[in-house]
């Protein structure tokens, strides 16, 4: 019987200072190829949720490649959307920082993605924690 397990990648740290949020995204995206390690039909369903200072990863227009020659967290988030991962930004935390849909990475249209990020209240993220089989807190 096929088993799908839900892994919640909960990102609570800001970008760049530590490697945390970057590793959250690269590991979540690695779910695309996890099947080779699993039994037939089994799979992993990753959900990415940004909370607290973690929502600062979601600000649009990051120029880390120009300034430091490294991939921006923006590019990673767009990749996650391109690959149809569920991406959630905590509404209360965006509100706290005065960030709106206009300031954050809501889609990956420019690289051909269809998936849209979700701005949801913390209660819904708590729901994802309940629903997850395991939580990876970055």
């Amino acid at each position: 019987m096929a088993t799908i397990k839900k892994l919640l990648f909960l990102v609570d740290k800001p970008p760049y200072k530590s490697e945390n949020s970057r590793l959250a995204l690269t590991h979540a995206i690695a779910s695309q190829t996890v099947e080779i390690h699993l039994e037939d039909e089994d799979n992993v369903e990753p959900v990415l949720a940004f909370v607290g200072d973690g929502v600062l990863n979601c600000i649009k227009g990051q120029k880390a490649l120009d300034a430091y020659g490294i991939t921006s967290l923006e590019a990673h988030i767009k990749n996650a959307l391109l690959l149809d991962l569920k991406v959630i930004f905590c509404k209360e935390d965006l509100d706290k920082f005065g960030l709106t849909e206009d300031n954050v990475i809501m889609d990956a249209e420019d690289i051909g993605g269809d998936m849209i990020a979700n701005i949801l209240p913390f209660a819904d993220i708590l729901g994802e924690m309940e629903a997850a089989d395991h939580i990876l807190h970055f």
Partner: protein
Amino acid sequence: MKLGVFVNQYTKTNSTLDRIKTDNLGIILVQNGVYHAALKENGKDSDILSKAAKVYALSEDVISRGLSPDKLDKKVTVVDYNGLVDVIFNDYEKFIWL
């Protein structure tokens, strides 16, 4: 949800921890998190001790820091690595490490 939260730092607050609501919450103080169980800043207990949660402290980390397991706050259960394994397998299902 049976959730175990590892607190490894001695910082004042974490907005995620403050907002987690669940019936079965455990807070496991490790590394510099153990100061929460031992120190009273300006005579006041750490906020972590007032949460609706069972609180554990890892004895190896307590003694490393010159703190005394029998002088910790009464609310705190001291466990060693052996005891922690049982807490992990018997008492909680999911974990976050703050």
